[in-house]
């Protein structure tokens, strides 16, 4: 079991954001979580990435208690959210080098060159990220998240606001990583793309999660219809 979360509850003061939520993930699986805005998707991803502590519940990642030993778990996580999680004043090369060093990677130069090549940023490797277009920044974010080849990838709304090139890149990369036995969790409200990449589906509504089906057991249309119905309440 790559990830095992049970009874995760998160409260902000009197506001209950996540309510006794269970989730598990095997290597080679892609779990898609569908949910509208404000359902707690971002909070969930932040808790799974150990950036935020849950009010109660347990979280195991790669067999390690991720709440007690967050620092040990983190290097095995890759996180792609709506923020770059990097320094826009620095160049892609400098960013990747800094984070690669902090991860303690070997053969860093080669790895950076390969990654920059893959996200087609090699010509701009030494320009500050600040001046990039939105699409380029998104490609840089992908490179930054993958620099240490994490075993578990967490995506928060990876398809919203992506340009075509970046979208292709994300889709390709998800398939590729899955084939290499990595685990992926992604949240989205885009049923079509979510269905396309996912192998198991959940709904997250009002802080509560609900398992829908494995990919073999459900078609895109049934899934979309059910999702629409849930949204209406």
């Amino acid at each position: 079991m790559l990830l095992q979360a049970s009874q995760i509850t998160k409260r902000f003061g009197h506001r209950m954001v996540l309510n006794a939520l269970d989730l598990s993930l095997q290597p080679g699986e892609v779990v898609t979580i569908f949910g509208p805005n404000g359902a707690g998707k971002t909070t969930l991803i932040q808790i799974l990435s150990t950036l935020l502590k849950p009010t109660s519940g347990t979280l195991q990642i790669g067999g390690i208690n991720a709440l007690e030993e967050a620092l040990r778990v983190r290097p095995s996580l890759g996180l792609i959210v709506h923020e770059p999680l990097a320094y826009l004043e620095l160049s892609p090369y400098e960013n990747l080098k800094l984070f690669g060093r902090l991860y303690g990677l070997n053969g860093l130069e080669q790895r950076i060159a390969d990654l920059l090549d893959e996200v087609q940023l090699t010509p701009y490797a030494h320009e500050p990220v600040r001046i990039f277009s939105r699409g380029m920044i998104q490609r840089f974010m992908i490179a930054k998240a993958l620099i240490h080849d994490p075993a578990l990838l967490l995506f928060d709304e990876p398809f919203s606001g992506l340009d075509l090139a970046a979208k292709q890149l994300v889709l390709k990369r998800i398939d590729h990583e899955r084939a290499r036995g990595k685990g992926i969790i992604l949240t989205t409200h885009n049923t079509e793309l979510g269905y396309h990449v996912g192998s198991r589906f959940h709904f997250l509504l009002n802080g509560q999660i609900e398992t829908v089906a494995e990919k073999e057991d459900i078609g895109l249309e049934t899934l979309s219809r059910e999702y629409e119905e849930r949204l209406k309440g």
Partner: protein
Amino acid sequence: MTRTQLIGLLSAILLFVAIYVVFSFAEIEMTMLEVQKIFYFHISSAFTLFLAFGVTFISSILYLIKRRDKHDTIALVSTEIGIVFGVVVFTTGPIWARYAWNTWWNWEPRLTSALILWLTYIGYLILRSALAEEKKRVYSAVLGIIGFLNVPIVYFSVELWQGGLHPDTSTKMNLPSTMQIAWLISWLALTLLYLFLLMFRYRTEQIKLELETIQHQQMN
């Protein structure tokens, strides 16, 4: 009768006794004459101020270790009451100083460290109101701890900078016994008053939480 009400009653009675003892029982001090009577409540309030911020300090530490909302609430409430006692200290202080030294303020170590502490914890309250819900407890606990560590340093630096105009601690022990009794009773009375306010204010905070929870449930 609840425990809070009992302590409220006790502190009210003790306050009356304290006022009686201060005005009728304690003998008149020979250099300051009647004005010296300010001392009983002024110094007791200052003690309570340090006590209140000390409670904030301790419960902040406890909150960081145990993460119970209870400790955070106590820290918040105690800070607020400490600030009220600070207002007493910093208004009666100048009145005393004006008579005794013909100046409204002097940089005496205890007064200065109380003032610095007071200002720090006003910052604490401002910070709390500015922080988002999910961060404010931990962050204000951190500030509650750091703020108090400053006290001994400020105290000793000011002591050297401007040696005591206040009667220092040793002379307090040599006060005539009637004055000592008056001082002890007013100190006890104000400590009890602090305790009562703490419990009362804590209850208010609980009601507020309950209210917000219900309101939130209703919205959903």
